């Protein structure tokens, strides 16, 4: 590559990165602006202030934000864990076994995934109120499973298909029961796939707004995205832009941290060396 080409690629890359990250930078910048500074017409705050963060962590909005943060973490982690575990068994069966209705399961999963959330939220609201699941953790975990399970089954079954079947047959010849072969050989090999799936599932649940706002009413189970929508300004003539920006930044942090932690586990080519090279 000539120097010119290198410069060209570098500039192009920078442009794309700037384009993608600009909204995030804007939110960060907003979160440090004081309420009178929001419409100052410039990108950077005139004076950087942490009053927005103080407001959502210790101030007026804290009683709305902090329980919501706890709910979001709890509900999303539980939903992710259940989805991964169930999807692992389902995907293994789909990838390895031949049984009637296999195609049906996969297409049903896909159908569930593309079904618009908004169309079932009203009946679900009525049903949940009837059976006492309204405004509970379980009341959110169940619909979240409908978001996370299909995608988990699809991605995991793709991962399982990648694992050479001979691996498992070798284990069986070596004296393993089917369960031992699954646990000692297939699960460790599928670990990167499971982590990837877990991250995707967690994001899906974490980002949900419609279920969160419709199926909850108090801080007993209201997740963060719903709580953000309920922030109010200092007066009714003032919109709560600063605190929302600050909360958005805080909510993004765990997601970034998760990716950074699991990035090491999602090493491509863990199966290298298993078979001929």
């Amino acid at each position: 590559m000539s120097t010119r080409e290198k410069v060209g690629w570098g500039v192009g890359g920078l442009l794309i990165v700037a384009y993608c990250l600009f909204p995030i930078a804007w939110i960060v910048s907003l979160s440090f602006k004081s309420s009178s500074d929001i419409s100052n017409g410039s990108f950077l705050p005139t004076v950087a202030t942490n009053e927005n963060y103080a407001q959502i962590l210790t101030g007026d909005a804290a009683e709305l934000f902090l329980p919501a943060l706890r709910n979001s973490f709890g509900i999303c982690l539980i939903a992710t864990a259940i989805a991964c575990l169930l999807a692992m068994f389902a995907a293994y069966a789909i990838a390895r076994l031949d049984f009637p209705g296999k195609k049906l399961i996969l297409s049903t999963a896909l159908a569930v995934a593309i079904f618009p959330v908004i169309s079932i939220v009203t009946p679900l609201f009525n049903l949940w109120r009837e059976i006492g699941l309204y405004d509970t953790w379980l009341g959110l975990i169940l619909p979240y499973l409908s978001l996370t399970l299909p995608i988990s089954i699809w991605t995991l079954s793709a991962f399982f298909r990648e694992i050479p079947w001979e691996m498992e047959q070798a284990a069986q010849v070596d004296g393993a029961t089917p369960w031992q072969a699954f646990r000692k050989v297939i699960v460790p090999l599928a670990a990167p796939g499971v982590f990837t799936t877990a991250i995707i599932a967690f994001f899906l649940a974490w980002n949900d707004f419609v279920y969160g706002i419709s199926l909850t009413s108090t801080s007993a189970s209201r997740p963060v995205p719903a709580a953000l929508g309920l922030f109010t300004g200092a007066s009714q003539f003032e919109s709560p832009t600063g605190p929302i920006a600050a909360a958005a930044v805080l909510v993004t942090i765990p997601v970034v941290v998760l990716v950074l932690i699991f990035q090491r586990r999602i090493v491509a080519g863990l199966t290298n060396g298993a078979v001929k090279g």
Partner: protein
Amino acid sequence: MAAIEMNHIVKRYGDGYPAVNDVSLDIADGEFMILVGPSGCGKSTLLRMIVGLEDITSGDMVIGGTRVNDKAPRERNLSMVFQNYALYPHLTVYENIAFPLRLAKVPDAEVRAKVEQSASILELHEHLQRKPANLSGGQRQRVAMGRAIVRDADAFLFDEPLSNLDAKLRGQMRAEIARLQRRLGITTVYVTHDQTEAMTLGDRVCVLRKGVVQQVASPRELYEQPANLFVAGFIGSPPMNFLPASAANGKLDTPFGPITLDESRAARVGDRDLVLVGVRPEMFEDASLVDEALLDRGARFSAQVDVTEWLGDSQYAYLPYESSPEAAAKLKELARELDGDQLRTQAIVSIDSASRIREGSEAEFWFDTRRIHVFDPQSGENLTRDEAAGAELTRQAGEDRRAQVERARARATVSA
């Protein structure tokens, strides 16, 4: 250690196609049996039925006196080396080899002793803490073998274990497998499509074609006394030449001139319009280099040389000939069945590397008519097969083998 008996084994897939059709085969305790054949002949399927990874449609599989048809692979106590090794990538070499022992809940100290022992047999000591991904092809192959020998299995099964290695390494590993098997004296079934492996490793070789056993014999018998056209064409490289001929009054009329058969063979062949005469390349020679005394034990002919290939230690010449459409069609069909493709009818002859015969020239050749075979093109049957001579060859091979095993064991005891 155990003998393996197969009685009328059939494997039929869902579409009714019999991948393995009525195979009966007895493998003696400690014997090295090779399953060989072109791709799709059912050899791997048969091996997988022995180990239990493939269901048996009908027939009995008996290992060490017990019928194992309905037993899971783990209950059969066999160990297998897969074509692509199937090492566990998340475990170190040590844990890979130890895996069968860990499953059997063997105490740690014993595991260490056994893994160390197999590692020293296979010279894997310095790699024990590495992961399979960091090993070379040959090393991975050795790890796969280590995992197979670490426990006291009743038999070893190999599924084309060397096909992923380059030619040089393949030669080394072949010798290694032979040495190991002699030393351990364990019943071994080895699937390959490579006839060098089949000829050098096996005590006996089972040639399969479309799921049917063609011949089970020692490599030497297969080579000298093939049962039919298929075996004759499959064993040997370059392959046996099949010359179309007509037979009458003990004489064969071939494109390379007439051949006179001795009385007993002439009687068996009889008079036929079309037979195929099988002549191995090395039965030919440059007529000018043949010893006077030998000349009248064979037939001389002159032919146009199309191409010559000089390989240093030997030399091949390609001699095209004319044949009837019927014979040509038959030869083409045979070539296709043997995974090859015959574009023109030609004979490949091996001549002395010192021969001055060059391509494009007309030259005098000689071939030894005492060792030729005559085949019926319709049934493929070898009309001139000498069963007694063949059986004698296999018996001799068996004796040699027993002596080898005894020597190997004696050596092992001395060194131990």
